[in-house]
């Protein structure tokens, strides 16, 4: 799966979780950029990403990712 395809599917997840169809995330998007992205939504988001890509985040991993770009790096590595 190319990086573009991962972003495309990731956008679908973000749109569902934050219920905002206009949402588009990029390499440098962080929680600061999305109003509702708090720790509670973060849990739902990770669960939805795991489901979408059929991967599992390890315990350490979830705290390490600093932006969406790093999230995509991790997903790409798992696929």
């Amino acid at each position: 799966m190319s990086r573009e395809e991962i972003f495309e599917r990731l956008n679908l997840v973000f749109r569902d979780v934050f219920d905002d169809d206009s949402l588009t995330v990029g390499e440098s998007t962080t929680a600061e950029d999305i109003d509702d992205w708090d720790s509670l939504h973060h849990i739902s988001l990770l669960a939805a990403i795991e489901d979408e890509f059929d991967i599992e985040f390890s315990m350490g991993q979830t705290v390490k990712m600093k932006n969406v770009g790093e999230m995509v790096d991790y997903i790409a590595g798992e696929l």
Partner: protein
Amino acid sequence: MEQLQYPFESKTLLRKKIKLKKELLSSGNSWVEKRIAVLGGSTTNEIVDQLELFLLHYGIKPVFYQSEYAQYWQDAMFGNEQLDTFKPDIIYIHTNWRNITNFPTTANTVAEVDAMLEAEFSHFSVMWDKLEERFGCPVIQDNFDRPGWRLLGNSDISDYRGKTNFISRLNQKLYQYSQTHNGFYVNDVDYLAASFGLDAWSNPLFWHMYKYSLCLEGVPYLTKSVADIIKSIYGKNKKVLVCDLDNTLWGGVVGDDGVEGIQVGPEVPMGQIYSEFQKYIKELKSIGVLLAVNSKNDEENAIAGLNHPDGILRPDDFIVIKANWENKDRNMREIASELNLGIDSFVFADDNPTEREIMIQSGFGVAVPVMDKVENYLRVIDRNGFFEVTSLSADDLSREKMYKANAQRTQLEQSLGNYEDFLKSLNMKATIRCFEPIYYQRIAQLTNKSNQFNLTTLRCSEGDITRMQESPNYLCLYGKLEDKFGDNGVVSVVSGEIIGQELHMRLWLMSCRVLKRGVEDAMLDTLVADAKEAGIQSIIGYYYPTAKNHMVEEFYGRMGFEKIASDEEKNTTWKLDVNTYESKNPKIEINR
């Protein structure tokens, strides 16, 4: 909403919860608002979000209070201004095995473990007692799930020093408490975890990362279960299971295969599955569920199929049998009108997806579970919680008999032709008295279940009913009706608040199964007599319209009240002077 019926897609509910909530809120339902305090021993945010979806699905619009992280005990024991002003209608205590303070070790003696068990139980029971005293509202308590490991292996469950043994003993004490305290309900998390799969349910990652007591995917199962209890408390259970016949209650088509050709009974696996399903349905009767048939069949064949020698359900297990070639939505409407029950209290079990779709599209609000494989039928009906038992009143247990007696009354009415003669021939006797403790449960149940003949739609818990009766400022009456066909049980409830020389009616309702029998006349005659005795000059009645109580919009007018106020929402206020009231003297012997 179909997404919220069992079997549901947990992951979708988690991912699309915001959108689903919006859809539910814009569905044009009428809502009852309930204030729900969630007191957690772990994180409760997702639990509240998912519980909201399931409650909205049941027509309950929740307002939530959430305790601060793991503060369930402090909130309950020491009070909390925010919780006090919140005034919960329901309290849900979400605790798990990690909230147990002390577990036995291999160093403990039997006596020490017994003492430990007592101490642990009282940690919880003093809290429940305190909540009862402080709020007097229903409490839902999770039982304890099992940890994901067993230090003593298989002995962990049987040895007094095992954690699982200790937990199971603690749970037993919790169940005893629930059996001796009205308004205390157990949410069976232990079962939910087992049916979900304990390894996944208890995935420690969710505890250590987020302090959730279970995995996220388990949350919808947990909250559906809590929502089932809540909607049952508020009288929103389904009442009637309407069954198709061919390939639903037996394998094959009786019209084509003949009675000897259909599959039910112990001979073959397929027959056994249908037998088990029939047995379950028959058992539903024992918890007050009414059964009916809605099948495309010649009636003769349908009856023959139900008389199959190895069958378990028999024609007289069903209150109504519609076996004809009419459309099933039409049959459904007729069943509802014959039973005088809201069609939205029906569940429709049919193996045919087209028939199910038509029923959904009819917009009646009939619950239509997905009956896709015969081996899943029983579980799909059971797990949906349509008939969740929170109390079993004497009324629930004899409901079928009452509806059968009603059918006999209808026959008599038709044979006599004259309605007055019919009423006289019934030999009706009413008991009309102030609320008595043995009926508190039934009275509370009626305030929650009655929608049509209900002037104020004030929903009351048993605690509310007790308080009304015990207050010197209330005048309360229940009405119980018997006739030659049987006992209808408690069918009417009125309660008014005395303010000065006026009696303000807070409750006036009646079960629709005794419509047009004169019970309302008997209630008013008695109420006026009691009011006069209490020095009251006038009775003030209120009508608050809902989507369902149109039938009583002009009730007070018909009873001789004068309309004194109305507002834009069509709320109306009525007044009756007790001194000029003329008794209505219905054809009912009144026993005080």
